[in-house]
């Protein structure tokens, strides 16, 4: 774990942001000042004040509480979908890299998946399953499967040719033992880095789906949905649109910084280039 020593400023700032925002999301019921769906008809469209720190929306719902709960939803959906994608894609990648007879089949299927524009693929899946959180998770996961399969396949191909794997085979180790003992440790780091990098884009993805009305359904709070709900009242009350966007940008920025930093720390080639 010597690379831990090389952690740079990007990783520090990124992980701080990610940790703080994740804590906020996890502790939502304890720190949100109001129920996110509770309406205050007398206080519609109020600006930031001591009573409502970030103001209220069309129904007089507290924007800060909705952002805190929305962050929780966004993080849950993005995290679950990227995790699913890493599991499915990672397994497919290992199978493709380890068993040559499966390689062509799996990678061609992935090529066809790459032939679909990502957002369109996702909204088609949502169209079939019907809009909602479950559909969003599945749609985002399927979109990311090919990426993880490629990340897992490369190192698997390389490790399979190593002498120690040959030695293990000669000793009579089963395929599954070799995969578990020799292949998995070698792909866990690139998969982990990819997980961080893709989390950033999955959060944007999730918020775009809910912005389009295809993810989390009202009245439940979701950051993308809040932006689209606030848009008709942009001129009279920009708060309900501005703040949720800032929240998305902050959390994505956190994961981007973390992902970039980890990639730099773990990839000597990138570091030399100063990339």
């Amino acid at each position, binding site marked *: 774990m010597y690379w831990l020593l090389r952690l740079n400023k990007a990783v520090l700032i990124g992980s701080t942001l990610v940790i703080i925002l994740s804590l906020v999301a996890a502790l939502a019921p304890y720190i949100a000042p109001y129920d996110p769906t509770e309406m205050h008809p007398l206080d519609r469209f109020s600006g930031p004040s001591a009573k409502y720190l970030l103001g209220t929306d069309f129904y007089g719902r507290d924007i800060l509480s909705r952002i805190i709960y929305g962050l929780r939803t966004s993080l849950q959906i993005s995290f679950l979908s990227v995790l699913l994608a890493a599991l499915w894609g990672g397994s497919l990648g290992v199978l493709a890299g380890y068993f040559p007879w499966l390689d062509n089949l799996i990678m061609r299927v992935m090529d066809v998946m790459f032939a679909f524009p*990502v957002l*369109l693929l996702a*909204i*088609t899946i949502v169209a079939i399953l019907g809009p909602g959180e479950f559909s969003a998770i599945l749609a985002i996961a399927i979109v990311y499967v090919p990426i993880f399969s490629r990340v897992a396949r490369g190192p698997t191909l390389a490790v399979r040719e190593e002498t120690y794997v040959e030695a293990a085979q000669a000793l009579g180790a089963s395929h599954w033992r070799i995969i578990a003992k020799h292949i998995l440790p070698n792909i866990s780091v690139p998969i982990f880095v990819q997980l961080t990098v893709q989390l950033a884009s999955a959060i944007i993805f999730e918020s775009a789906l809910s912005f389009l*009305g295809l993810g989390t359904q009202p009245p439940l709070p979701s950051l993308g949905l809040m932006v689209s709900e606030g848009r008709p009242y942009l001129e009279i009350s920009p708060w309900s649109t501005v703040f949720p966007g800032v929240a*998305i940008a902050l959390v994505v920025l956190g994961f*981007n910084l973390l992902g970039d930093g980890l990639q730099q720390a773990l990839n000597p080639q990138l570091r030399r*280039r*100063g990339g």
Partner: protein
Amino acid sequence: MGFYIVKRIIWLIPVLFVISVVVFSIVHLIPGDPATVLLGTEAADPALLKAIKQKYGLDKPIYVQYFLWIQRVLHGDLGLSVTTGRPVSKLVAERIPYTLELGLYALALALLLAIPLGTLAAVRKNQAVQWLFQGFTLLGLSIPRFWSGTMFILLFSVHLGWFTIVNFPSFMGDPLDNLRSFFLPAFTLALPAAASIARITRASVLEVSNMEYVLTARSKGLDERRVVFIHMLKNALLPVITVTGIYAGYLLSGTIVVEKVFAIPGLGRLGVDAILQRDYPVLQGTVLVVVTLFTLVNLAVDILYVFVNPKIRYV
């Protein structure tokens, strides 16, 4: 090289076939009877249901249905919209120009922004430039388009009144007015791509700047501008072209969100509205056309790349 291009074009056939199967399946995967799905109403007149079933051959085995469907599609018949009753092919054809223009405009803006910025960040080593560059690329990659677009509307249209975003005149009618109306949406679409291309440009120029021929050019006493633009940039552009190629297809298909934000009647909005209104024939047609466009753009990019990159000989 010729062989590679032929191979790449032949590979298009299975890809388009699979795409057509996937698009065909949409209607069959949606829970419910395909005839009801195509009619859009659950309590339709039984006589009408029967007519639809006969017309589309829905009472026949699934592979026969596919062949009937693909036959109609190849003749340009994408079915009728459930909500408007108009032919889907017409609806799609009307929307294509908007999406195409938005995508191309965004690509042009992204390159105009990214290449100078990336080169500047690679050449000027001072702290301020580096910080600004990191800030720009990180924000560009972190801010979702639907929000940045909304903020641009709030700032430039509502408060400053620089752009009107009510209607989108055709390019042929009034090119300048058209480019002006499309500027904000194209800029919104371009930002994340610009950030990403700028990063590649910077890394690529940095890598080239350590090459011996750059040292030679400098020691010959060449003007620094000449060194940067002729010797470095020209050689550094190859990876930039690769990434730009990836973004070309991506920008064309990434217009969905931006079209929604700026109320542009493009293909993306047609598709999303079709989902929300359960107009599945329209959804099917839109997905088919967008994915085919995307595949063709990617093919064009791959072929162009062979010509641009003399170092790679494909076999």
